[in-house]
């Protein structure tokens, strides 16, 4: 140890203090937890994050490959939705000229309106005709426009 304070003369070696050992232990534990979190997040980066979603046309093209795996699909919500007796809703999304029928069970975000791009989580139905979704995320653009009280918002009929 070359702890050589320049100012203080009180420099005899001090026996290890219990407080120091305890603090080291606590911080060591914190570091282990953070290391675990790092591992988890790196797996997420390589897995989920690197291919967050397929565009609707890609998801259709890769239908055979995707099988019944869970994935996310992106497209613009077109038309209107219809309520089904079982509580789910049906609507269509479109991207790059490809339309996909969606059967969604679960809640819808407040900003889920026709014309907005959405990312859905779920899988292809067994026959591959419909995307079975259970989570809708509204994808927001990077533009901001002031809402004028005297102007009718563009997303209302």
């Amino acid at each position, binding site marked *: 140890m070359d702890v050589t304070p320049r100012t203080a003369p009180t420099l005899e070696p001090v026996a290890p203090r219990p407080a120091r050992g305890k603090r080291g232990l606590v911080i060591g534990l914190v570091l282990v937890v953070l290391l675990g*979190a790092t591992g988890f997040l790196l797996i997420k980066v390589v897995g989920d*994050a690197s291919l967050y979603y397929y565009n609707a046309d890609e998801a259709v093209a890769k239908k055979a490959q995707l099988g019944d795996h869970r994935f996310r699909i992106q497209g613009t919500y077109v038309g209107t939705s219809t309520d089904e007796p079982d509580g789910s809703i049906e609507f269509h999304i479109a991207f790059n000229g490809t339309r996909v029928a969606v059967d969604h069970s679960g809640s819808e975000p407040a900003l889920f309106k026709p014309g*907005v791009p959405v990312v859905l989580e779920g899988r292809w139905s067994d026959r591959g005709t419909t995307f079975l979704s259970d989570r809708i995320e509204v994808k*927001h653009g990077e533009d*901001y426009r*002031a809402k004028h009280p005297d102007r009718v918002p563009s997303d209302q009929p």
Partner: protein
Amino acid sequence: MTGTTSSRGTRVLGALTLAGMAALLLFALVLSPQDEVQGEAVRMLYVHVPTAIVAFTAFFVTVAGSIVYLWKRSEWWDITAHASAEIGAVLLGATLVSGMLWGRVSWGVYWTWDARLTTTALLFVFVLGYLAVRRLPMERDRRSRLAAVVGLLLGPTTIVCHYATTWWRTLHQGPTITRLNPEIDGIMLFTLMLGMVVFALLYAWLLIHRFRVLWLEHRVEDLGLDAALAERRSEAEDGGTLVPSP
């Protein structure tokens, strides 16, 4: 004044920061308009984006300080790196919290594992790790060297986090104001820019104070382990309140 880390410069800076924060609150919560799509939720933009950008800047200061420390063993840069990371951690925490609340309104979910959110979480974990290493009870030179090496990690992580929306497909939107012709309403843009200035002022103000606090910590460390022990005792006893000087 005794017992404080303030000087005339920091008092001026602090007054400017407080006045700026008051102005920012006025613009963000009252004077700026609702967004056509997002409604009132757009008011979180003015805290989310400035805290993120200033936090990123703070981490680059930490990286710079770490490099200079490893190169020249400069105590000044060692403390600057540490102080900057402390403030960066608080600001990035603010970014995460504001982002989650904004996401709840805008996307419909608090959290999702897209590249931007995941790399931001990773950056937050790294800076917490850096600060934990800074508190390790070991000899200061060794601890500072170890921390500086960990601090270097913040550089590439910050860059990846910043470009995540460009390099990958994300739910998170891309940049607005770095584009040539930002599609943003005038008063919204002004409020956003005011937010940048105010949080930059806040960073500078806090950086000076945290630098001085850490500098005092180094001096106490220099004074020997007996003094440090007394400090810990008084900390345990009074829980951070004033006690008469011995």
